[in-house]
């Protein structure tokens, strides 16, 4: 608790300070910084939630079938398959994103080849577009989505599924009415884990993005490190945190009736 509260209060204090790097920053209870910062960086906030949300949904849609297949059809290869899903994550995060930059370059491995055989117009590009940023975020989220999903699916009592079959439920009905509801805890935990990390991410936008794809994480980083504008950076960080908390709370109200511990 100490390691959480003290930094948090410090950030709040810094956000309410005014000054500059030469004369120092002093506490002036400058609460107007919150509306000001929110107003100035509204676009980036909205964009962060859009990108973060989109990447979470895509990661869920991609990883659910994969986790399902491993949990139900993996047989004795389950652990190996799961390990394969996690394997890329033994490579550093930044290196992974950088290699996407290399793969998706305009004249690179993929686009270059497609352009050479005239499947794509010369001016086509993926990097520097919102799609590239969302793809980077999604890619990075895959294992964090896969693990909780796998655990939830693996824990489903196969007896329930069989019982449904005995009661003449079709495969679709079995999935929709038995497996999907029983895996809800995994979906809940996976979405939570991925959405929170991705909304605050800045690496993907910095490396794969271009103009008009800046996320709020990039702004915080720039204000803090490059401009040494600590109050604005702190205020933005707090707003982001608050927004995430509210979002999480609403999500918990809508989706979760049980505590998170029970899900994971």
């Amino acid at each position: 608790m100490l390691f959480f509260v003290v930094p948090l209060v410090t950030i709040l204090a810094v956000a309410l300070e005014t000054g500059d790097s030469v004369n120092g920053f002093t506490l002036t209870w400058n609460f107007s910084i919150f509306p000001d910062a929110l107003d100035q960086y509204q676009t980036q906030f909205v964009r962060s939630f859009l990108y973060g949300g989109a990447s979470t949904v895509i990661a869920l849609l991609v990883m659910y079938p994969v986790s399902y297949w491993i949990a139900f059809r993996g047989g004795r290869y389950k652990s190996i398959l799961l390990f394969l899903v996690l394997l890329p994550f033994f490579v550093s995060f930044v290196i992974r994103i950088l290699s996407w930059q290399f793969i998706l370059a305009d004249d690179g491995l993929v686009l270059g080849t497609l352009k050479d055989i005239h499947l794509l117009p010369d001016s086509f590009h993926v990097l520097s577009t919102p799609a590239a940023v969302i793809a980077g975020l999604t890619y990075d989220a895959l294992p964090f989505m896969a693990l909780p999903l796998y655990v939830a699916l693996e824990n489903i009592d196969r007896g329930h599924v069989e019982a449904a079959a005995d009661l003449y439920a079709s495969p679709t009905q079995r999935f929709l009415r038995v497996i999907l509801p029983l895996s809800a805890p995994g979906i809940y935990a996976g979405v939570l884990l991925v959405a929170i990390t991705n909304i605050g991410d800045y690496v993907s936008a910095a490396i794969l993005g271009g103009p008009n794809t800046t996320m709020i994480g990039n702004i915080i980083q720039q204000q803090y490190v490059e401009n040494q504008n600590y109050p604005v950076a702190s205020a933005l960080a707090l707003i982001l945190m608050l927004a995430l908390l509210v979002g999480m709370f609403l999500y918990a109200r809508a989706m979760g009736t049980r505590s998170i511990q029970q899900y994971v």
Partner: protein
Amino acid sequence: MRDQLDAAFFRGLTQPRMSRRQLVRAGAAGAAGLGLMGFLEACGIGGSKGTGAENVDWDKFWADQKKSGELVFANWPYYIDIHQGTHPSLDLFTKKTGIKVDYKPVIQNNAPFFAKISPVLKAGHSTGYDLMVITDGWELTQLIENHWLIPLDQSRMPNFKKYASPAVRDPRFDPGNQYTVTWQSGMTGIAYDPKATGRKITSVHDLWDPAFKGKVGMMSDDTELGAAGMLAAGITDQPNSTPDDWQKAADLLTKQRDDGLVRQYYDQSYIKALEDGDTWISQAWSGDVFQANHSGYPDLKFIVPKEGVMLWHDNCMIPLHAEHPVDAMEWINFYYQPQIEAMIEDWVWYLCPVPAAKEVIADKIGDPTVAKSPLVFPTPSVQKGFREYYTFKGVDDHQQYTEIFDPIIQS
């Protein structure tokens, strides 16, 4: 059972009801809050003012210093000669002077590096570096104004006085070379791939050519970005530019972005984008293009636009509280010999601060490509195009500048 408990808990959170007991509790929290106020007040971040070394008798300081046999040198990556993992120039220095050099290529960019060392200097501690290389710009201005640098001992640098090019003597950002001497200089001009653009590039305005939509690389550093904008707006005397001029430049840059011309605002990675074909035309640093030409991309061209080219200097300086200042001075003096400069220049390929190194590279090292390159030893016609950057007058001035240019990049 547990489910019910949780549901009640959530309801409690969403429905503000205040009982008498809670009121008492809130009162207690308020009292604790008073203690918190004190804590909050204490969270103020100190400024850099008054943390530097003012009113120091530097003559006496230098008279008291002794050579220690050690030197910690912070520099940028790929900014010194490398031969099979060693640095021959540094090895030669150790052999001649007995000073061991701990060479650290740790500086990736001025602002983040400054953000790392400034809290240390503010607290009055040593950064651990005896010598560091920083570009003329806002960070260097702050280092000088905060008195965070040790003035160089002018008597210990005879080679600088003898061999330094007029271009690096007595620069506008450090009159009389009181604190700095140039490590290397460079130009920020335009690089392009003639095959992709299909025509010769001659002007800064080509960065605004609609034919290159989505294929233009600009720099994310606001000093570089602003300078290009000002050149395009016809403002060549940038040291005397005004906020009105900045706004004119920013308007042009915003239009360039909104018309979809800009592919991305790059840091050092702009050169890779050019090599990969992500961009066709880009703001560029002279040395990078020369290096790219010799590492598999011979087509890329660097040009000095007719509006001029921005000239910058990366400078060696001794941070305050450095532990081995005499050793740092010895290296500065050693570096400014033509034969040492030539060794490094033949590898680094930026603008050489010692003109006499040209003959050494041509005759002794036998590398006419470098010796003849106008990007390393600029011809008078190139020199005519040199333009200087704006020097910030203080923290407010700098803030006004960033407020004008940052929104372009932060979109």
